[in-house]
């Protein structure tokens, strides 16, 4: 094929995506997909480095990273009329970062995974205060996607009403008893499997790794509720391949593809029309009720405060 579309995606479950999304799309468009994978920060850094002459046509990243890129003028404003499935999306997914710079394609919940045979978790606050968790708990690093979510929930649990500085100080005070601040969920899974850590906040998309372990893991339902996040699609500015990119985005958002991806238990759908079995739903962040109950931090809040958080984190937590 003489047409190619270069996309940048998260690296997990590429085999499943290939079956559910890439292969059928290549069939339809008669083009080649070139796929770059990696975690969102690295991919963002490269999009920025290549801004003058974009290599990537279309990328999927976290909503606040999308906002950051948008603010640097690296993204193209989306013409939603070119996305036939746009109306089927949950409202929250339609314009998550404002100005139509991105559309959401999946939601995820975020809560605490813990060893049900050793401990019970009722509240996010337990992470810092439960005696049994001293030297047995890991938290996500503030620089990752999960970090701000945990910060938000700890803030809520301690009734600090958005005074994140105070929450970071609390984490700093407890830092000696925290095994590590992880940056990859796979790393956390390894640590929990070798019993280095018995509880830690984690995104729902990683749950399957814990569920299959011989150890007794459970997904907490803390009284503050679960945190939530969304991953979005964006298009780089001036990539010259817009038509194909729209075609691909639309295909990915279609009920067909979203259902296939959901049934493979990879991504939870952002398309309202997707219907799945209870058993599948159990593993996903599925359904309007659940999605509406999630504590979601506006991307703008994260972007605005992150530098300050990292700064404070570096002085008080990492020390």
């Amino acid at each position, binding site marked *: 094929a003489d047409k190619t579309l270069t996309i940048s995606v998260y690296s997990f479950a590429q085999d499943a995506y290939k079956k559910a999304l890439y292969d059928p799309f290549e069939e339809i468009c008669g083009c080649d997909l070139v796929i770059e994978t990696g975690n969102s*920060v*690295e991919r963002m*850094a490269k999009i*920025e480095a290549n801004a003058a002459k974009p290599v990537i046509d279309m990328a999927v990243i976290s909503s606040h990273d999308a906002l950051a890129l948008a603010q640097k003028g690296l993204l193209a404003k989306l013409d939603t009329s070119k996305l036939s499935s746009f109306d089927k999306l949950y409202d929250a997914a339609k314009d998550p970062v404002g100005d139509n710079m991105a559309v959401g394609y999946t939601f995820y919940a975020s809560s605490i995974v813990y060893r049900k045979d050793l401990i019970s978790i009722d509240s996010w606050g337990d992470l810092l205060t439960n005696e049994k968790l001293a*030297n047995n708990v890991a938290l996500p*690093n503030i*620089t990752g996607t999960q970090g701000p979510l945990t910060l938000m929930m700890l803030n809520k649990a301690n009734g600090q009403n958005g005074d994140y500085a105070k929450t970071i100080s609390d984490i700093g005070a407890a*830092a000696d008893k925290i*095994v*590590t*601040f*992880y*940056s990859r969920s796979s*790393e956390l899974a*390894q*640590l929990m499997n*070798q*019993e*280095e850590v018995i509880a830690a906040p984690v995104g729902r998309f990683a749950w399957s790794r814990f569920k299959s372990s011989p150890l007794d893991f459970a997904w907490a339902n803390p009284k503050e509720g679960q945190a939530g996040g969304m991953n979005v699609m964006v298009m780089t500015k001036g990539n010259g391949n817009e038509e194909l990119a729209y075609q691909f985005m639309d295909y990915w958002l279609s009920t067909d593809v979203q259902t296939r991806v959901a049934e493979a238990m990879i991504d939870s759908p952002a398309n309202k029309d997707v219907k799945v079995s209870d058993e599948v739903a159990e593993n996903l962040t599925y359904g309007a009720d659940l999605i509406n109950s999630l504590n979601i931090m506006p991307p703008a809040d994260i972007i605005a405060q992150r*530098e300050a958080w*990292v700064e404070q984190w*570096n*002085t008080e937590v*990492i*020390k």
Partner: protein
Amino acid sequence: MFLDSRQGLALALPAALFALLMFLVPVGILLSEAFQYDGGWSLGAYVEFFSKPLYQKVFFRTLKLGAMVAGTAAIIGYAAAFCIVNLSAKARGQVFGLVVLPLMISPVARTYAWIVILGRTGIVNDTLVGLGIADTPLRLLFTETAVFIGLLQLFLPLMIISLVSSMENIPRDVIPAARVLGANWLQVFTRVILPLTKEGLVIGGTLVFTGSLTAYITPAILGGSKVLMLETLLYQRVNVSNDFVAASVIAMILIVMSFSTNLLLKRIATARS
């Protein structure tokens, strides 16, 4: 020695030009960004860097770990190299093969092996608790100890290689001569072996120290964000904060550290004789 220097220059130039154009120039441009501060040329970025307590701490930790790894590698390296040199030619080849074996293994995998070994239920803790040396499993992962062990294993082969090759250049009968003149083994080491292998020590020391400073995978995985080193901090500055200036500052610091350590070691080595 052939004296036609033009021919010599022609032979050396391709390598020098390659390193210069394809390597030093781009790196130099990047590093020069660290001298851009508030729109002009200044050392402001460096002042700012060293004014942050975390950065100071990371700086000194990196220095300390680098020195400790190099020092320990030198001690173990001498013992091992001396044993290797004393082996028969055949056994020497085989042992040498085993020593360089770790170099063949991806550092990624090597480091993950340490996660398994140093874990709460890993072999080290099992042994310590089993022997009654420790009551409860020690927390080794994500500590400086873990990073130290990982780096040591990573770079020890380089030290052994340098020391073995410089020990082989010790003239044949010099050690027996010292023995016959009344030196015990410690004196043989300090007065004969050490001065005669200092070149190997300088090369090995520089390789290990520089390697420890600029290693990325090991501190990233075994230390995580709790044991930041300059290289992992550099990565964080680039990737998380897009802060190229701080990254350049850190890179420049690393280069200066490596370079001055090399000079210092050379100086010490030549001053002694």
